[in-house]
């Protein structure tokens, strides 16, 4: 087990180095000037700013400095937020995105498992049809549409009850999170529903289910004890990447609901060619993804005894 984790950690470090290098190269190849503004700068003023950000040095030298600082855990100062360290930006805004992401993931996973199991149980009957139709909508409609609809829905709801029960936007309390988390989790929920459905159907025709039925086990017990538990495994596999996708993919939701998450900074940094923030957030998210996938792999072993058994037998 330890050997396995160490191996994975090493490959994780290589992956992160690769991500950092690829981003650095890509970023410098994108046309456009990170210091460009609507107003042209006098050369002497530009020189001062370039010196502040180390842009006056050759690119390979900049790469060296960046890698050195990254090892020390320092991503430098933002180009656009002139007083802020990229580390501070990540530290202050990632927890917001993460909290929203976890909420969304809880909603998505719970919803995905329940709806997926339901469609499998009611296969080819009307509940299956209705849910699968909604799933297609949730997968294909972009999240900004749901975000806007969600916000209009809150307005209509507040209008109806005659008081601002649910906040239209903003951040700080549990009620601020509800609708954004639902909107954010919708796509993943739909995806998980489909996954859960097919994996349930596969399990239903398995031998051990037939055996259980033959033994006379009650259908409810079969459903919970045998079908659900086995069908959940593939769902858990995709949870790792999903966590990363949800916590990073919240840009639109964060924008519409005025949530101070990291997703907003990430996208704006790319638009404004804010070199340090691009590098900082990409490397951070890359590392986050690598760790999440690793965690899921380890968890997988705990949930599925067969994997542990196979390992110890070998």
């Amino acid at each position, binding site marked *: 087990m330890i050997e396995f984790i160490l191996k994975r950690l090493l490959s994780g470090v290589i992956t992160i180095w690769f991500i950092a290098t690829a981003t650095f190269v890509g970023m410098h190849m994108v*046309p*456009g*000037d990170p210091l*460009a*503004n*609507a*107003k*042209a*700068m*006098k050369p*002497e*003023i530009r*020189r*001062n*700013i370039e*010196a*502040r950000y180390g842009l006056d040095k050759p690119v390979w030298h900049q790469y060296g400095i960046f890698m050195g600082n990254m090892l020390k855990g320092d991503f430098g100062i933002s180009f*656009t*937020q*002139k*007083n*802020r360290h990229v580390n*501070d*930006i990540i530290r*202050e*805004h990632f927890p917001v995105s993460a909290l929203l992401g976890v909420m969304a993931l809880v909603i998505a996973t719970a919803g995905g498992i329940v709806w997926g199991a339901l469609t499998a149980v009611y296969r080819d009957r009307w509940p299956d049809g209705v849910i699968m139709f909604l799933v297609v909508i949730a997968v294909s409609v972009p999240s900004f549409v749901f975000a*806007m609809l969600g*916000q*209009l829905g*809150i*307005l209509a709801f*507040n209008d109806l009850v005659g008081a*601002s029960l*649910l*906040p*239209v*936007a*903003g*951040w*700080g*309390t*549990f*009620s*601020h999170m509800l609708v954004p988390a639902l909107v954010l989790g919708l796509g993943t929920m739909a995806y998980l529903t489909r996954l859960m459905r097919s994996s349930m159907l596969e399990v239903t025709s398995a031998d051990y289910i037939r055996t259980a039925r033959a033994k006379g086990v009650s259908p409810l017990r079969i459903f919970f004890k045998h079908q659900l538990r086995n069908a959940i495994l593939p769902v858990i596999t995709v949870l790792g990447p999903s966590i990363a996708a949800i916590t990073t993919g919240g840009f639109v939701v964060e*924008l*519409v*609901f*005025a949530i*101070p*998450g990291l997703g*907003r*900074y990430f996208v*704006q940094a790319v*638009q*404004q*060619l804010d070199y340090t923030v691009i590098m900082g957030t990409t490397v951070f998210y890359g590392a986050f993804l690598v760790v999440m996938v690793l965690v899921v792999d380890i968890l997988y072993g705990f949930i599925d005894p067969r994997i542990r058994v196979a390992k110890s037998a070998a």
Partner: protein
Amino acid sequence: MTTMITTQHRLTLVALAALILTSLTLLSVPAHAIGLDYESRSISHAIRQEPPDLNTTTSTDTTSSMVLDHVMEGLLAYDRDNNLIGGVAERWELRDDGATFWIRKGAKWSDGSQITAHDFVFAWRKVLEPANASEYAFILFPILNAQAINEGKMPSHQLGVRAVDDYTLEVTLFQPCPYFLGLTAFSVLFPVKESFYQSRGERFAADAEDMLYSGPYIITEWVHGASIKMEKNPHYWRKDEIWLERIDIPYITEDANARMNLYRDNNIALADELVAESLQGALQERMQIKTFLDGAVFFIEFNFRDQHVTRNHNLRKAIQSVFNTDDLVYKVLGNPGSYPAYSLYPRWIKGVNDLYKREYPPIKPQLNAERGRQYLEAARKELGVDRIPPLTLLADDSPNGQKTAEYLQTLLKQNLDLDIRVDVQIFKQRLAKMTAGQFDMVVSGWGPDYDDLLTYGDLFLSHNLNNRGRYKSDEYDRWVGVAQSSLDTRERMDAFNELQKIMFRDVVIVPLYERGKIFVQHPRLKGVVRRAVGGDPNFNFATIEPPAGTAR
């Protein structure tokens, strides 16, 4: 087996209880802001982005300006009609070779200490120090030795600024600067207290407690990316004239629809910079939609570099003769609040005694397609070609930029049979291509840096770096020289009019439109000042009317 199940159950129960408890605590906090409240004299507002830089010595953007104009004050300030009045300075004197400011006794920092002339000397030196890397340092260049200091050729203590004593600031100008007084109301020239600056080091202005305030309000809380709270500054010298006790900014979002929804739910008192789509609901609910011109003027700029056919005067004349800015603004763009432009100077700018456009009306081109074709024919002969080669029209990927480019493409094809290749780029790349000269025509715009017509007038000065089409005219440069150095208002305004005439005659630009901002504002909120230069909107003079039925 049994014990395991009970442990699991117990864990689940604990987790459930914890979840319910946290949800309840979180829910009990009031979750939304209130647009305005007469009793507590407070308003809520939403801004587009986190203020990128509240350090006055380096700040350049409009969002930071908006916050800074509430919490800081310079030597001079603006009143509710945007006229210059005394701020930290109670008296001043502007001469050809310098200026003197007498600091108000009783003008205090938010820690209760007196603001002194030394605080201005320190701040201005800081702005110019190369290591400070201030983008707006050039605004101080009229001061003696400023440019040399910024280029690192001189130490900053040689700047032509001196504190004669705590209450007298002496400025030596390197050339006459008729608009210098207006500059002192601009954030780059705001004071900084040296001891406070040193105590904060790198952290200066990074958080609310890392700032010292000289203006009507102080920032009491700043949650990055989320909210800013401002409260009345108890040490502000004019605090009795400030009515609002609190200005909250609980929302930061670039989404115009979200701002509109917040306004409709009465969470904010003013929803700014709306887009046409978000107005549907507003119209149905009979809200009063307001507009104001934000100072940005848009135009087509030509490339005057060698090898570009747009160097040809007759070709530019041909385009000017067929271009209809009214059609573009009213039929194509359809942005409420924007106006057709006939000059580089916006319509609200002041002249000698009245609006500039009344005293010196711009020349409107006579639309005449036949005339246009004659100019084109002349251009074709002068260039010695059978057919004008396709022209590259550069534009950015904003809706307005693209619509303008497409309109122009169709118009020039129909009227002049000119082929236009539209090159759409993201904003920064559009600028990069402009600087590199990779265009024949470009849809461009300009907003003011400071409160003087010169911020528009010197745009096409031959060595101005923003003159990216490289237009060059000795006559134009001469008149800019007059406008830069004369202290006589009439003489300056005449000079600006000569520039206006040259821009039309030489077709340096084809003016397109003046951009308007659309907003809705709570009917009981009064006295909000809108500004094209510096921070906008400004609530320093705002008041709230009592709700209907309340005695005043």
